[in-house]
């Protein structure tokens, strides 16, 4: 007869995130960080310095870590990886990383993608194997339990309705009273550079009833009012509040202001084909062209999200670098950045909370 042993360990994770119910966890959220030659590095430095001072337990990076200059690069330079390691990985105990299209292998429709993902992914904290599902190995998606929240990373570039594998996990989390937070690179809804996803990605994501959905890709900040499942005519049922009860709807936040060049919203550029329909614009609570990051504080009773505007030091005389995408384009004559006329530094730009 054998003796039955159970070894209990937390050797799989750093200690600070074993959250008791009374405690809260702080996560910094950032996307589209400006490492590489096609970004505004001063903006990135200001953002990552401010994030580091938050002393957060975890980082959620929404993808696009590197913007390199060459088409179809043959390799990912180590200088990028070193900077990511030092600024976005080492300062945080837990690292939830989303793969962006600029991180993946270059393709015809994205020839300047860095191909760095194979070196970035090992820096991420592994997803929970307990919830392993039957997705192809090459998909970068999975779930992670942190304190009183379930984080779900979705791969938007090989999109299938995630409900078959994800719904049982989300339902289980909800039964246990956990908050449910999704993260993906390309947004399900945006006014920045519109792609019609109301009856596909947006409907499928909202049908799983996450409390929050974070995405990046658009080099700006957008927050939408909590919304339900889009109706067949495209109408979006929204609750126009900033503080609301859990279950009032799904809040989508687009955060791509980590140092990438700031790109004006399509309507500001006069791009009618990429301008969001009225129903989408009406669902928008707030937006801005600015470098920024978010802090997400998760406690048993509340999800509190604060958006921090980061205004970097003005360029030195003679410095050519400009935070504006296509800075010489005359469209900028009529477009202002959120930091224009404001002091250098970090300030609260937006805040909302969800209460149980």
């Amino acid at each position, binding site marked *: 007869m*054998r*003796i*039955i*042993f*159970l*070894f*209990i*360990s*937390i*050797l*799989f*994770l*750093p*200690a600070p*995130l*074993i959250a*008791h119910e009374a405690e809260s966890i702080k996560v910094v959220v950032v996307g589209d960080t400006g490492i590489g030659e096609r970004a505004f590095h001063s903006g990135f430095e200001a953002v990552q310095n401010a994030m580091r001072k938050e002393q957060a337990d975890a980082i959620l990076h929404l993808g696009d870590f590197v913007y390199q200059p060459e088409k179809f690069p043959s390799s990912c330079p180590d200088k990028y990886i070193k900077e990511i390691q030092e600024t976005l990985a*080492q300062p945080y*105990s*837990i690292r939830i990383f989303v793969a962006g299209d600029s991180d993946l292998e270059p393709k015809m429709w994205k020839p300047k993608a860095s191909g760095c993902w194979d070196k970035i992914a*090992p820096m991420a*904290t*592994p*997803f*929970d*194997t*307990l919830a*392993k599902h039957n997705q192809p190995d090459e998909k970068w998606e999975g779930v*992670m*339990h942190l304190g009183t929240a379930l984080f779900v990373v979705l791969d938007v570039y090989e999109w299938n309705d995630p409900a078959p594998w994800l719904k049982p996990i989300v339902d289980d989390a909800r039964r246990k009273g956990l908050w449910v937070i999704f993260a993906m690179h390309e947004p399900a809804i945006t006014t920045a550079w519109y792609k019609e996803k109301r009856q596909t990605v947006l409907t499928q994501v909202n049908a799983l009833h996450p409390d929050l959905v974070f995405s990046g890709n658009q080099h700006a900040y957008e927050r939408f009012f909590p919304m339900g499942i889009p109706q067949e005519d495209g109408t979006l049922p929204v609750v126009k509040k900033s503080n609301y009860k859990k279950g009032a709807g799904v809040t989508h936040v687009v955060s791509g202001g980590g140092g990438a060049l700031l790109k004006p919203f399509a309507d500001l550029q006069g791009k009618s084909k990429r301008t969001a329909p009225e129903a989408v614009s009406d669902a928008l609570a707030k937006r801005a062209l600015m470098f920024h990051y978010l802090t997400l504080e998760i406690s048993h009773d509340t999800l509190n999200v604060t958006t921090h505007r980061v205004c970097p030091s003005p360029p030195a005389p003679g410095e050519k670098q400009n935070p504006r995408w296509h800075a010489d384009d005359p469209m900028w004559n009529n477009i202002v950045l959120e930091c224009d006329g404001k002091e250098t530094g970090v300030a609260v730009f937006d805040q909302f909370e969800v209460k149980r």
Partner: protein
Amino acid sequence: MAEGWAQQLKGDVIEPHSAGTDPHGMNERAIKVMAEAGVDISKHTSKHVDDVMYVHFDYVVTVCGHADETCPVFPGKTKVIHVGFDDPPKLAQAAATEEEALSHYRRVRDEIKAFVTGLPDNLEPEPAA
């Protein structure tokens, strides 16, 4: 790592299970250093304690300080023993190189091996009734 060593060294006298108080997937470095020692744990999964509560354990061994504090109650005759090992992922965060990070894993791997090698004789005797 403890489950891997117990299977390897004491499979004839111990039925080992392992679980975490808040699991986050198998650690690639742990898999690597165990493989160096000839123990394959790559097929193991990171389970939550709740998922093994149905098993009647003779012994529960908590292998770090935090697990000891947050360990669930095991009813009946289960004996709960705490053995303090350093947490390699935590130590590895401060490592300047991958090799330095792996050195923490190797040290803890060897410490766990020494503990498991002495099982079950090195367990505290039951207190007198």
